[in-house]
Every structure is written in C-alpha cells, then in structure tokens.
C-alpha cells in the first residue's frame, strides 16, 4: 500500500516508499527498482527548515499511514505499528555544512513549546521498552532503533543524518521546536516555528 496523501512530506521518505510495499517481488522487479535513481533525501526540501550558523535542520511531518506502512514492512504487527503511527511523527535531517567545527547534538535537550506547555520527543528507550513488552521481533526492533533520529550524534563538516522523532501526546495546533547543539563545545540554541503534526489518514 503506497501512501495516498502527504506526498511532499513523503518525498523525504522517497527511498523508503520503494521498500514499504509488502508482498512478493520478482527478482526482475527488484532489479528494475534498483536501477531507478534514488532521490537524494538530503536534497528534498523539508516542510520546515533553517540554516543556522553553518548547520541545516529540516523537519518533515509524516502521516500516520506512511508511518504505519513503513513499520509493518519492517516486521511490526499492525497494533504495534499503529501505536507509533498514532504519535506525531516527524522525519528530521541535521547537517553540518560549514559550522566551522564538530557539531554535537543531544536530542534530550530539545524542547517542543505548545500553547499547553513544553514537551520532549519520546526517548528511544521508552519505545524500545514498549516493543519489548509487546513482543515485537528482534529484527523489527533493530530496524526501529536505526530508523530513529539518534539521541546523541557528532557531525564533522559534511556529516548529516536523517531519522524519525515522535511526540505523544500529539500537540494540538502549531508549536515551536527549540533546538540546541554545540560546535566545538560552544553551545548554540535556535527555534523552528510553526510546526504541526500531520493530519490523520
């Protein structure tokens, strides 16, 4: 099942969409798929983006349908995939273009500011505990872990990553993301405004 809407946000997951579709693929079909150019996920314009002191942060919302399909194809059962898809899920890209040193990010320091208060992205360990409790297969849990935006990461100039983050409960209306990172140990903060969760399918 391919996503029916949210195509612009889904473009960030262009490569993922190719591998979402479950079911048997012939080897010829796979080869044809492989021959197609894979869109550069870093080159796709995110829904929200900032270029800040030589770093680029991009955020794209993912629809529940996209998220559910992705994790079903990774081996999650429908209920577990639905639990994650029910959160407010984003795909984030962070890139050190020319920050002038090593950029270090720690996701636990980032905050969401809503009309109702502040919240943080759900920590990776919390999801891992939940998947373990639900008996999600090890292969599916490994895929989940590596599909998430990492809790800690160092970026030399030229380095970049993309990964998913999730908010529960889903914030209502627009909200702000206060991000922070350090460059060669010097802390920097900024805000990305006007973020919104994707609408339900």
């Amino acid at each position, binding site marked *: 099942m391919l996503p029916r809407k949210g195509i612009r946000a889904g473009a960030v997951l*262009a490569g993922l969409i190719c591998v979402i579709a479950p079911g048997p693929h012939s080897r010829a079909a796979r080869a044809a798929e492989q021959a197609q150019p894979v869109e550069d996920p*870093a080159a796709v314009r995110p829904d929200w983006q900032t270029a800040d002191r030589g770093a680029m942060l991009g955020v794209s919302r993912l629809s529940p349908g996209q998220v559910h399909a992705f994790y079903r194809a990774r081996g999650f059962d429908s209920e577990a995939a639905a639990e994650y898809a029910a959160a407010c899920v984003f795909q984030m890209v962070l*890139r050190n*273009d*020319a920050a002038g040193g090593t950029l270090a990010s720690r996701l636990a320091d980032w905050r969401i500011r809503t009309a109702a208060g502040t919240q943080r992205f759900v920590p990776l360990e919390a999801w891992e505990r939940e998947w373990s409790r639900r008996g999600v297969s090890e*292969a599916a849990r*490994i895929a989940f872990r590596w599909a998430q935006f*990492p809790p800690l990461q160092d970026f*030399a100039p030229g380095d970049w990553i993309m990964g998913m983050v999730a908010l529960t409960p889903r914030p209502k209306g627009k909200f702000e993301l206060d991000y922070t990172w350090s460059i060669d140990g010097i802390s920097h903060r900024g805000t990305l405004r006007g973020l919104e969760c994707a609408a339900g399918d």
Partner: protein
Amino acid sequence: MASHIAARCAALSARLGTDWRLCLAALFLLIAPQAAAQSPAPRGLSTVAGAPPAPEIALSDVDGKPVRLSELRGRVVLVNFWATWCPPCRKEIPSLTRLQRMFKPEQLRVLAVNVGEDEETVFSFVPDPGFTILLDLKSASLRAWQVRSLPATFVVDPEGRIVLRAVGGREFDDPAILAQLRELVRP
C-alpha cells in the same frame, strides 16, 4: 549581475560621497555568510583523531562465507554500515560499486555491513554489488564501532587503524574521497 551591483554601488556611493569599493565590501560581508550557509557541504571524509585500532568484524557474507576484518590487514578497507530501508544508504550503494572497481582487491576492499536484515532481503536488493556484503543480524558490530546512525562509514588503513569516517551518505567515487583513499593505498 555583478556589473549591475557595481553600478548601483557606484551610484549610491556618489550620492553619499563615499568610496564605491566600501559599498561593495559591505555587500560582500552581508552576502558571504548566507552564501556559506547555502553552499554544499564538503563531500570528503573526516579524519579520526588518534587513529584507534579497528574493532574486529567477524561475520558471514550473503553466501554464508565467514569474513574477518583482521584477515584483510595490509590493504585499505572501507567499512560501511547500512540497511536496505535507509534512503541515504540505498543512494550511496552504486558509488561503493564504482569505488571497488577503481581499486584492485589487494589494494582496497569494501565491506558493507548490513544491519538486521536477512540474506534474502539483502540479496534481492543488491544481487551482485561487486563488493563484500556482511550480515549482522543482531547489529552487534555497530556497538563495537560506536555507530549511532545509518549510514556510517569508516576507512581502515593497512595497519588496521581507523583513519577516516563519514556520518551520512556520500558519493564514494567523489574526487575528494578518491584522493583521500589513494593516499592510504600501498603502491
């Protein structure tokens, strides 16, 4: 465009009674930081401080043949951690194929460590990549290599030390990367 800006600067400077070159310099200072922020990132690999010894990798390839990193001592080894569902990983795979073709196997070997997927999934995606794909079903090697995100790439020199690394996708036949690798390869 440049001549237009220079003409505008000259007109403005004449009105204000200042040197037009000061106007151009001021414009440059305004524009340069933005241009730097928008310019593409360097596409090379970064140097790993201290060149630590590479942790052992002992895994099987897609044919079930065991491979040990330590047995490749004496040549440059590019170790790439990846998964088929990871878009930047998928994008850089063809450049790994081209890179391996550019070097003799006794000079440089590409080892692509797949994370958590089975042989059928990997084989279906890359039936004949032209380099060695290893299967790490438990993703244990990523902990030893302190990988935090995919794709991640390390270059091991002929003495078995990690000397270069990249976080995120690259084009491995980029001239900047080729130059870095050629410096390491023994003639």
